[in-house]
């Protein structure tokens, strides 16, 4: 089930909220756990048991780590291996078989397994928990229900943010409820809904036309590249907004996952603003344990490349994702070796153009399938292998989606937020009146798109 669906908005959510708020506090976690299992079951009926087994394994290992101090490393490794083996089996087996077949001219059959939705996210959450128990950053959770609630919590189960156990440890025991927090959650949720339905899903029509358009021109390749760049951001940050908003409605405070990444002036800054919870996860659980930058230069470079190849692989079992990760690894190394200083000196708009260009090329690599399409698309941006710069079809796409591009570009910067904050200082009462009206109108428009629309899963469900 996706948040941007009528079944979630007008069936699942009202029932979940009613039950959650009428039951006493001591059974709220149980309600959340059952609700989350139902939510997962609706979207991924076959793999509910897999998730419960994974949680159980992590739970038992956590207790064993605490109880048997001498053997805790073995239990840590055992827990991580079990969690990762599920992920590797379902996500990477076919990729491994394909490559083995290609290298050794083999003919092993692919397993063609469906990827359990959210497995990349909940596996990382469980690893962060068990490592934190091992390093004693957090106390072991002896109540299975609380740990299971943390892992399966439906607002962030399928596509993050990757909430650390330490972040919501206290909230699993006691949550505070107020109209201020709830209305904040509603606002975030509706903003996320707008990002997904009114921008990302609309741009998906342009992205999907890549394979149907009759003649690709240079203009079309640019429209495609810009669309995919905006679509991925609004899809994923929209989901994160909805997750954070829903979390607040149920009394949780999830960490931010995006902070206007498209205003970054370097790739280093971009990755501090994009998918923040994933970036910090890799920093804390891979990069630093490998030695981070407190090692010799060669090892340091190795550490960066390992992290970014893994980041690429985390996004998908295909070479284009590895290439995408590697691109960022190399760029970050170049920036750290000196480019950052240059970027700081040149005008801000130039460094922003550099970042956006790199990010756009990155998302082209990320989104197309196969190396030949990567070459075709990147070449197409520069007129290589393309007959025409422009044609009637490309112009139609440009004009048809012009308003969406403009809105998306403005909305990917903090301009609107800053204007609202300024106005709020000057005319707070007027803004307070306008806010509920605006949210209501936006909700009505989103619902109208849903009623007239078709089912559009989130892009990050694939990861």
């Amino acid at each position, binding site marked *: 089930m996706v948040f941007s669906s009528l079944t979630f908005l007008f069936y699942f959510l009202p029932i979940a909220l009613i039950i959650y708020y009428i039951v006493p506090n001591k059974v709220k976690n149980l309600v959340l756990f059952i609700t989350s299992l139902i939510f997962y079951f609706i979207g991924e009926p076959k793999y509910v048991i897999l998730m419960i087994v994974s949680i159980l394994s992590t739970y038992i290992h956590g207790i064993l780590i605490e109880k048997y101090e001498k053997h805790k490393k073995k239990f840590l490794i055992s827990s991580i291996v079990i969690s990762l083996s599920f992920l590797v089996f379902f996500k990477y087996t076919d990729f491994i078989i394909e490559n083995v077949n290609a290298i050794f001219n083999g003919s092993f059959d692919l397993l063609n397994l469906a990827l359990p939705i959210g497995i990349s996210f909940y596996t990382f959450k469980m690893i962060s928990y068990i490592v934190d128990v091992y390093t004693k950053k957090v106390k072991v959770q002896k109540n299975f229900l609380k740990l299971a609630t943390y892992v399966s919590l439906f607002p962030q189960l399928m596509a993050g943010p990757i909430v650390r156990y330490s972040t919501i440890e206290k909230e699993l025991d006691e949550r505070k409820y107020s109209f201020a927090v709830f*209305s904040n959650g509603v606002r975030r949720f509706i903003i996320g809904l707008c990002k997904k339905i009114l921008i990302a899903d609309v741009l998906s029509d342009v992205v999907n036309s890549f394979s149907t358009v009759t003649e690709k021109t240079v203009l079309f390749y640019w429209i495609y590249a810009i669309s995919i760049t905006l679509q991925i951001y609004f899809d994923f940050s929209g989901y994160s907004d909805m997750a954070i908003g829903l979390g607040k409605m149920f009394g949780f405070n999830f960490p931010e996952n995006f902070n206007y990444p498209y205003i970054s002036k370097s790739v280093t800054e971009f990755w501090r603003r994009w998918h923040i919870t994933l970036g910090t996860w890799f920093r804390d659980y891979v990069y630093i344990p490998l030695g981070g930058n407190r090692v010799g230069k060669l090892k340091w470079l190795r550490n960066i490349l390992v992290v970014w190849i893994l980041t690429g692989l985390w996004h998908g079992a295909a070479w284009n994702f590895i290439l995408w990760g590697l691109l960022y690894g190399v760029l970050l190394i170049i920036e750290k070796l000196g480019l950052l200083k240059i970027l700081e000196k040149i005008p801000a708009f130039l460094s922003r153009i550099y970042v956006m260009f790199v990010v756009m090329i990155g998302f082209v690599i990320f989104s197309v399938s196969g190396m030949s399409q990567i070459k075709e698309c990147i070449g197409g941006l520069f007129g290589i292998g393309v007959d025409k710069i422009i044609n009637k079809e490309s112009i*139609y796409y440009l004009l048809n989606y012009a308003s969406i591009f403009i809105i998306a570009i403005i909305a990917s910067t903090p301009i609107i937020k800053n204007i609202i904050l300024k106005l709020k200082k000057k005319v707070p009462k007027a803004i*307070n009146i306008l806010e509920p009206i605006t949210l209501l109108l936006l909700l009505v428009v989103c619902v*109208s798109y849903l*009623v*007239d629309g078709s089912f559009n899963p989130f892009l990050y469900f694939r990861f």
Partner: protein
Amino acid sequence: MSERLKDIVVSILFIVIIIGVFIANLVLKDNDISISERRKLAKFPTINSSIFSKSLTDEVEEYAMDQFLLRDEFRSIKTFVKLDILRQKDNNELFVIDGNIHKIEYPLDEKSVLNVTQKIDNIYNKYLNEDFNVFYSIVPDKNYFLDDNSIYLKLDYKKLNDIMHENINSNIKYIDIYNELAANDYYNTDTHWKQQNIVKIANKISKEIGFSDRITEEFETKEYTDEFYGTYYGQLGKKINPDNIEYLTNSYIENAITYNYETNKEARIYDIQKADLSMDKYDLFLSGATPIIEIRNNDAKTDKELIIFRDSFGSSLAPLFTQAYSKIILVDIRYISTDLISNYISFNSNQDVLFLYSTLVINESGALK
């Protein structure tokens, strides 16, 4: 409004809306059909062994979309936002120019066009020969009349025609009606042409086939309804003035009857009873879509017959030929296989044959059997 009051308003408003809509959707009776979209609406799926399949989720979402409270009003809001606020060029590939609704038909599917020529050739090779008087004609969809400078995408009609001409058996003669038509010959809210505007097409075809001397009686125009909301209207979800349906009649048409091979029922050429009950008022013409229907001209002064292989555009054109033939048989191979036709029709060289297809069907001919 204070910050606290605003928080209370936002919270309560949201809860009231989602719970209110939830209850309303539960309490309100499900609709069977959408009149504006002319289709059956999804029902709540039966929960059985498919509970473990993802398709159940999709079916429930489809049900929620179809049976949603004030569905048509919400669809209108979306159209308004897309076309009037965001100034996008189309909604669900539909757009409006001067109160006339168009649908983007693009790009040209050359394989589909070739498929049509193969179907026509199959029929010719199987049932017809050089002794038959065989013709074909192409009905342009109304996008053909869009200004070439318009930003809207339309088919490459020249290429479509070229593929048709190059691949159809040379014994089948072409009747060009493109230049006889204009944009206002089509309904504003529908795909079809207006019968009252296509006497010129009937004249052209009758001249080319050679039966114009057998049509002597003038037509009288009658109005069926002035509130015709066509196919495009429902899909668009925007207020557009309705069309009126007029039909042309004379004593031959009045006295003729139709015989439907599928239902074995007789009816009038202009089936008012059917149209009154139908969601699609264009069903007035020959009772709507059907595999084979025959017009029997009881006052015929000839034993000549006409067979028309056609789509829905033929339904409003064929009645205008009534006087000239003792029998007109209309075959729609979207609903009957070409192999089965001879079970119902015996072919003989006293029959003229016309293949009449719109560019809409030619470009999307997968349904032709």
